[in-house]
């Protein structure tokens, strides 16, 4: 009985059907049950297969923890949230983040500081006579509110004038674009034969060797027009310098000697070069990144 040949499809059932997990009403599960009842040797084999399944499943799910993984993911998510927030009004962001506390805050403000006043308003008691000090307080509060409001409007207007993007967001966007468009690397116009549009230039902070091939392309980076200079060093190292006509207060005035951002494929760093925001992304690790930076000028 045990050596009876088994239909190859039934053989598959031993591997595929998990009687402890699959739907017992399933037609294949029913068929397997019938086979196992008829053939104790197969029932034993099935048990062995399920034992190995449990063992292999556990081994596959085990593994060492990768330290710092959560922090790195959250850092990248922070950039994305920030980029999303730029498309929303600040009031919307506040409402979504803390709707209850926002409402509570405003009702407390409207109600005034004194619980006595609140209770009087609620019970409909007559409003108390307003003294001189009270008037002064109100005038002071109004003046402060006006000043704060004016400042708010000024900040809001300035925010509308300038694109709100952080250095990190810009660096991330450039790195993503670099990795996503590697096929287009070096396919632009040869620098020297054709110059980039006025106002854009290759930063002097980038190292150029004899034999370095430089081409440039027009791209859109974080919804802004940009020029990317693709540099191929004689050793075969590749790097792109993204240049945007933008002044960002959180960009350092000179290129960092170590990359600010690393992925499995590339390294990136960013800085402000006068009126240009620069992001250098290279294919490779920190050592390649450093080879794309011109040696720092002497301090004196």
């Amino acid at each position, binding site marked *: 009985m045990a050596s009876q040949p088994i239909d190859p499809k039934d053989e598959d059932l031993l591997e*595929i059907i998990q009687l402890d997990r699959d739907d017992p009403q399933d037609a294949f599960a029913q068929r397997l049950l019938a086979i196992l009842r008829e053939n104790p040797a197969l029932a034993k084999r099935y048990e062995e297969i399920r034992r190995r399944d449990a063992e*292999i499943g556990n081994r*596959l799910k085990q593994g060492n923890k990768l330290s710092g993984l959560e922090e790195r993911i*959250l850092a990248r998510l922070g950039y994305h949230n920030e980029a999303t927030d730029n498309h929303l009004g600040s009031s919307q962001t506040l409402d979504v983040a803390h709707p209850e506390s926002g409402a509570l805050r405003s009702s407390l403000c409207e109600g005034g500081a004194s619980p006595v006043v609140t209770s009087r308003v609620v019970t409909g008691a007559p409003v108390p006579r307003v003294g001189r000090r009270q008037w002064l307080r109100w005038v002071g509060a109004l003046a402060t509110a006006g000043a704060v409001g004016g400042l708010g409007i000024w900040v809001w207007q300035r925010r509308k004038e300038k694109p709100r993007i952080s250095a990190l967001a810009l660096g991330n966007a450039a790195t993503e674009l670099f990795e996503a468009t590697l096929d287009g690397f070096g396919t632009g116009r040869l620098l020297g034969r054709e110059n980039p549009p006025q106002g854009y230039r290759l930063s002097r902070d980038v190292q150029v060797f004899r034999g370095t091939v430089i081409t440039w392309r027009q791209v859109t980076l974080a919804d802004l027009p940009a020029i990317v200079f693709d540099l191929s060093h004689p050793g075969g190292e590749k790097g792109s310098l993204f240049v945007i006509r933008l002044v960002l207060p959180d960009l350092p005035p000179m290129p960092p000697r170590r990359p600010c951002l690393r992925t499995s494929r590339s390294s990136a760093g960013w800085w402000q070069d006068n009126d240009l925001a620069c992001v250098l992304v290279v294919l490779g690790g920190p050592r390649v990144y450093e080879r794309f930076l011109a040696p720092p000028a002497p301090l004196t």
Partner: protein
Amino acid sequence: MDEGSRQPTIEELVVQHAQTVFRYAYRLSGSVADAEDLTQETFLLAAKNIAQLEHPARAQGWLLAITRNAFLRQRRGPHVTLLDDMAATIVESQLDSDDTDEQLIQIALQSLPEQQRVMILMFYFEDMSYKDIARELGVPIGTVMSRLARAKAALRKKLDALTKKVAPV
């Protein structure tokens, strides 16, 4: 609303599931660097589409499915790194008796063709039934049954051979 039915925030998902997603990505890709990239991509996609998480209790399964789809999408792309069997040969040649179970199973897994590897991981890691696998991959049930059965047998055979190879004489 109880804790189980509350929509988790993306930060909570990262804290709870990042390591599991990373391990799954590592099993799929066979490289720590690729696995981290894949894990980051998974959570970026999850953050963008968190409204699609219908059952918060099934968040892990949802994230693993995103990881798998991202991996398959990448592999369909223009750049392919090392051929699977070449990678397995290289790793196998570096095998020694100090290798842990965890490494052996990774080598055995890497020796399988990508199609089989994905099915194996859906079965063992995602705890999916043959019907779920067929639905997810858009493959007929009969095809999944025969391919998965072959893949499981091949994995066990490879694992047994590797275990024998590193066992002390």
